């Protein structure tokens, strides 16, 4: 492996020497011997199993819930509904002041997506919990649903989430996150070519090999230990504390071992209801998603739509870029308002463009709530941007790599959201890539530098 340390040589003087070395992972010996303890490897005497009754409708009012038959089912210990949850309406990012609280732990009066949790059944065995869940009767009045972001933004669309009052997240900047830099309209008027394209993606499921879940034990002193595969330990602890109206000192979270996450285990979904169930029954409780729930119920990566309009000159300079981005949050916020905001900062890409105009919307629809997944908010944007870059290069008959050299950001350039570029190293990466891929570019590009010492 070739290591290039020269670019950051003046920044890092501490003689880093780990990169390029083979180092054993500390957790591997446990993995290969089957000794690593995942949350579900904990088993406690008298442990109850929790199964959810879920909404079969995308959008419906709940007229009534009848749990009487389920409660009589052999092996059933307790049935929980919205009224049992101390603080039933929550939102994960409230911890960093991103509200309003917009999601229910157990549905109260309404369901907003197909699969939403309505009633929790606790029984001695998984099978009894499953059978009893099938006996819960929920009377629904089906409401019109909306699945398409642009439809959802039209006047008269069904209102998905009353806690927002409209089908988009209201930022302090208004109906979308906005970036305004220079004058795009004037530059479009002077550009040699204009290219407007739209790019769209579907939701993507993380599909970890280990499904989402937790095991909770009451410790007998009004404290609870929660073994969980969350990727967001303290977020989960603090949100559980809010939902259960219980000081965090009463909650002991044990985790750190995750059987595949990829961002799919950062929502706070299974822990609060399982802790509540352990508290109300005084028994250990296990709540594990079935494979079907993992695929259908857990948050996917958001569907996105990205519309990009670029003005480009024959010499290869992009002079203006206008982007409208849409992030499909599904029925609830979870991490999507943050994902859409990240997109707003990211859409110019690693390029210096003098005139930029960006709007990104976080839209509510009656689809499965989306959330984090590997670089959410930027990954789909990068796909769109780099396809657009190739199309622009083709449009002006330029080599796609040379086209990127011309537009690459360099140290000191002001980005559209007004952060100066530091430690870019993009030029140097592309030079290394050009050599490695045997994709030669003109000598002047090989002489360039992110420090702007070159061409």
């Amino acid at each position: 492996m070739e290591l290039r340390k020269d670019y950051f040589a003046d920044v890092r003087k501490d003689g880093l020497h780990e990169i390029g070395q083979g180092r054993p992972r500390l957790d591997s010996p446990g993995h290969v011997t089957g000794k690593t303890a995942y949350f579900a490897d904990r088993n406690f005497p008298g442990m109850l199993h929790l199964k959810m009754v879920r909404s079969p409708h995308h959008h419906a009012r709940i007229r009534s819930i009848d749990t009487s038959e389920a409660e009589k089912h052999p092996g059933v210990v307790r049935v929980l509904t919205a009224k049992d949850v101390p603080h039933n309406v929550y939102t994960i990012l409230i911890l960093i002041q991103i509200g309003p609280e917009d999601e229910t732990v157990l549905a109260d009066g309404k369901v907003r997506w197909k699969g939403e949790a309505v009633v929790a059944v606790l029984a001695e065995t998984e099978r009894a919990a499953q059978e009893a869940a099938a006996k819960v009767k929920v009377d629904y009045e089906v409401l019109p649903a909306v699945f398409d972001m642009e439809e959802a933004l039209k006047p008269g669309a069904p209102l998905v989430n009353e806690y927002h009052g409209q089908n988009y997240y209201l930022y302090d900047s208004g109906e979308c996150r906005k970036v305004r830099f220079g004058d795009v309209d004037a530059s479009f008027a002077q550009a040699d070519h204009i290219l407007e394209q739209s790019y769209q993606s579907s939701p993507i499921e993380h599909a970890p090999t280990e499904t989402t879940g937790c095991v909770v034990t009451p410790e007998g002193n009004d404290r609870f230990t929660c073994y969980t595969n969350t990727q967001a330990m303290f977020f989960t602890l603090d949100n559980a504390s809010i939902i259960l109206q219980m000081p965090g000192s009463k909650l002991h979270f044990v985790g750190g071992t995750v059987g595949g996450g990829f961002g799919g285990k950062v929502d706070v979904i299974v822990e609060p209801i399982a802790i509540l169930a352990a508290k109300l029954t005084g028994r250990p409780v296990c709540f594990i998603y079935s494979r079907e729930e993992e695929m259908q119920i857990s948050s996917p990566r958001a569907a996105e739509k990205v519309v990009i309009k670029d003005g480009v000159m024959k010499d290869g300079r992009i002079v203006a870029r206008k982007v409208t981005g849409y992030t499909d949050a599904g029925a609830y916020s979870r991490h999507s308002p943050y994902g859409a905001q990240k997109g707003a900062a990211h859409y110019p890409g690693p390029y210096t463009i003098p005139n930029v105009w960006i709007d990104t919307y976080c839209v509510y629809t009656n689809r499965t709530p989306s959330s984090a997944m590997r670089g959410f908010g930027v990954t789909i944007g990068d796909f769109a941007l780099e396809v657009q870059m190739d199309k622009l290069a083709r449009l002006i008959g330029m080599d796609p790599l040379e086209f990127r050299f011309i537009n690459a950001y360099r140290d000191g350039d002001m980005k559209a959201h007004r952060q100066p570029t530091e430690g870019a190293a993009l030029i140097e990466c592309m030079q290394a890539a050009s050599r490695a891929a045997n994709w030669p570019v003109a000598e002047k590009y090989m002489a360039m530098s992110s420090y702007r010492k070159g061409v």
Partner: protein
Amino acid sequence: MAKVPVQFTLNGSEKAEFVESGTTLLHALRDKIGDTSPKGGCHQGTCGACSVIIDGELRLSCLTLAETCGGADIRTTAGLAEGGVLHPLQRAFLDAFATQCGFCTPGMIMAAKVLLDRTPNPSREDVVEALSGNICRCTGYEPIIQAVLAAARANSQNAA
């Protein structure tokens, strides 16, 4: 529900349990006997995380009823290391970085062991075929394939 007695050997030691009729071997091993090395990734025969070896054959313990295992010789990844010394497959998985989250690893190792027991010098295609019932969402499979091939090489060097 009526319980049925079942007796088998697990990694060489005798086990006897009463299980409810219909209990899967995965459930019996993990929750009754306490060997949690087989993992439940799907409970429907699609992921391979629960793979164990029964009388020399690779089996999905989530689709095997415990009550059908009377008298069987059952092997799991937990029993593979002898006297604290890792099996060549375990060593190779460590060295080749073939495990990330580790959830698929015990099942992968079982599938690889059955392959190497029968085909000591497998081709790459043999390895891919043998692991085709096991899903890994982390590694992209290549390090696992390399680990199995490396373990086969280590075995044949030891034998020579």
